[in-house]
């Protein structure tokens, strides 16, 4: 299912399990989001921004290198070419227009890799709204270029110092700030959190597959791809890339999680394989937890995938068998990122590199059409890549 039921459930996953302090906020958003999203002037303004400001449609690029190596025709959906360098801007622009129409005057967000933080800071600058971005201390260090970009854009970056000091904790801090400042608009960065966020973000990211519906036939002469591949942190780029294909059973949906140092290593973020059903950030979904329901701190080299849950839509797609899930370890992702840089001249984000690295594990037929969502560019990860290559030694 593309969209949840009225209570925000995709099968048994989803819902809005928030403390009473946030009930009015979530209820207001639930009551308004579909109506505002459907307004002609909202859509017109959003489409205009996506086009003239963010640079959409993002190209579909045929990769000769990947096709020769892994078989069939492999295309990259170039979300890395969007303004600010990732798919996150699609969501940030949509939600900030929504916030403005709801009369909100302050924006808050969480970020892992910093791409959502940069996208939100950008959208807030554009709209002239003050913006606070919560980011785990560990992520601030490993994604330092994005911290600098957010500050340059006028946002305040607030360090989350609790727990594992990564995306989960940044989200906790954003939610706590929201409880204390209920007038703020919480611009969540992935298909996670209480209903209606998963559906709201999925609808705003759906532009990715909406474009594919035209681009795939134009490039390949066939109406549908055989496989669509995307990485999953919370799952927003995957939700966007899958969205218009979910009800097309012939299209294989392939979700790639971060294996970290290996699924069995105790240092992993492969949520759907290591997780079980529970509640995280207001949503019932699959999450990594111990026997007492304590959330386990995940690990991945990629800050954007270093999250112990997945969006409820993906929990449903995966557990119903509609999507297949793979996990890719740090070193596989790094190697795939280096290979794409060296052979195609495209430096992918570490998150996106996880999606690329799954290609050798797939059963690709010679006449298959495969689309990989290249969710973002890798400038923010240069230091990590260079360390891996020992180029700075």
């Amino acid at each position, binding site marked *: 299912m593309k969209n949840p039921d009225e209570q925000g459930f995709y099968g048994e996953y989803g*819902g*809005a*399990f*928030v*403390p*009473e*302090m946030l*009930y*009015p906020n979530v209820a207001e958003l639930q009551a308004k989001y579909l109506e505002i999203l459907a307004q002609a002037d909202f859509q017109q303004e959003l489409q205009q921004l996506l086009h003239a400001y963010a640079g959409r449609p993002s190209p579909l690029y045929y990769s000769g290198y990947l096709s020769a190596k892994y078989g069939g025709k492999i295309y990259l959906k170039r979300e890395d070419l969007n303004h600010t360098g990732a798919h996150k801007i699609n969501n940030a622009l949509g939600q900030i227009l929504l916030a403005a129409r709801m009369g909100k005057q302050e924006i808050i967000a969480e970020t892992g890799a910093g791409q959502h933080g940069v996208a939100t800071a950008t959208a807030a600058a554009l709209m002239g709204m003050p913006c606070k971005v919560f980011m785990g201390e560990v992520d601030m260090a490993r994604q330092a270029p994005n911290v600098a970009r957010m500050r340059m854009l006028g946002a305040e970056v607030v360090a989350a110092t*609790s*727990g594992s000091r990564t995306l*989960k904790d940044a989200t*906790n801090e954003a*939610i*706590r700030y929201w*409880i*204390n*400042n*209920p007038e703020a608009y919480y611009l969540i960065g992935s298909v996670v959190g209480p209903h209606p966020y998963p559906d709201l973000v999925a609808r705003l990211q759906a532009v990715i597959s909406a474009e594919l519906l035209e681009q795939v036939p134009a490039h390949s002469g066939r109406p549908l791809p055989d496989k669509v591949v995307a990485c999953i942190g919370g799952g927003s780029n995957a939700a966007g890339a899958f969205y218009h294909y979910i009800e097309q059973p012939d299209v294989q949906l392939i979700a790639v999680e971060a294996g970290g140092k290996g699924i069995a290593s105790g240092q992993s973020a492969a949520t759907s394989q290591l997780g079980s*059903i*529970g*509640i*995280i*950030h*207001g949503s019932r979904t699959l999450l990594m*937890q111990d*026997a*007492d*329901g*304590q*959330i386990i701190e995940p690990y991945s080299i990629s800050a954007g995938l270093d999250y112990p849950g997945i969006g409820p839509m993906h929990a449903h797609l995966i557990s119903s068998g509609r999507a297949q899930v793979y996990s890719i370890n740090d070193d596989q992702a790094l190697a795939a990122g280096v290979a794409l840089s060296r052979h195609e001249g495209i430096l992918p984000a570490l998150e996106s590199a996880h999606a690329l690295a799954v290609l050798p594990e797939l059963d690709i037929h010679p006449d298959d059409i495969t689309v990989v969502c290249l969710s973002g560019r890798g400038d923010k990860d240069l230091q990590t890549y260079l360390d891996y290559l020992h180029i700075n030694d």
Partner: protein
Amino acid sequence: MTDLQQFIQSKKEGILNIFFTAGYPHLDSTLVIARQLAAAGVELVEIGMPYSDPLADGATIQQSSEQALRNGMNLAILFEQVKQIKEETGLRIVLMGYLNQMLRMGEERFLQNCRDSGVDGLIIPDLPMEVYQSQYQELFGRYQQAISFLITPRTSVERIRLADRLSSGFVYLVADNSITGKITDDFSPRQEAYFKRIRDMQLTSPVLIGFGIRTARHFRAACRFAQGAIVGSEFIRQLSGGVDDEKIRRFVKNIGRKP
């Protein structure tokens, strides 16, 4: 009527409910603290089940939870400790925790453990009233567990009435739009107007005020509008240097003192 309600109704006013985190500052502090509170005249306590991601809690309770988990606290140990506290002190015990802790154990098993160890009721901030009503009300009743729902300055009249109807312990009046542990010296006029508005609604459930209660002035003010109040973060701050029975006795005496 649940035991908890009966107790609160029989006391009527000036009820001091002290919150502390199980397993903090040391794993076996839970029982020591409970004994001292009982000795100081406290009759109702709220014991926090430490959680990794306590969304409604500020830094003080977060840190106490992290420490408790590092100390090895878990639900099996907690239920053992609660059982001992109940047997030794007869305190009324409310557990406060997050929905995932109950789900993970299995709702029924969790509630059964609560009953068997002598827990009187639960506070689960992220359990929505509607979900309780449609899925859990009967089960809570079966295991004699009283639930207490939160209301805030932004809760609609309709939802306040719902919280009143569904709560089988007390209505937990959250003093401000905030997470726990906010530090102020006095309630603001805006807060007092809100307390008065709730008092004037004449709810059928008893009402206790919590979040940010840290001085005798807060406690007295709260007692003008409600049956009592809950002191959490400020009590936990008293424990950071270790459990000192004289300090606990003085704290309880001081909070409850007459002007």
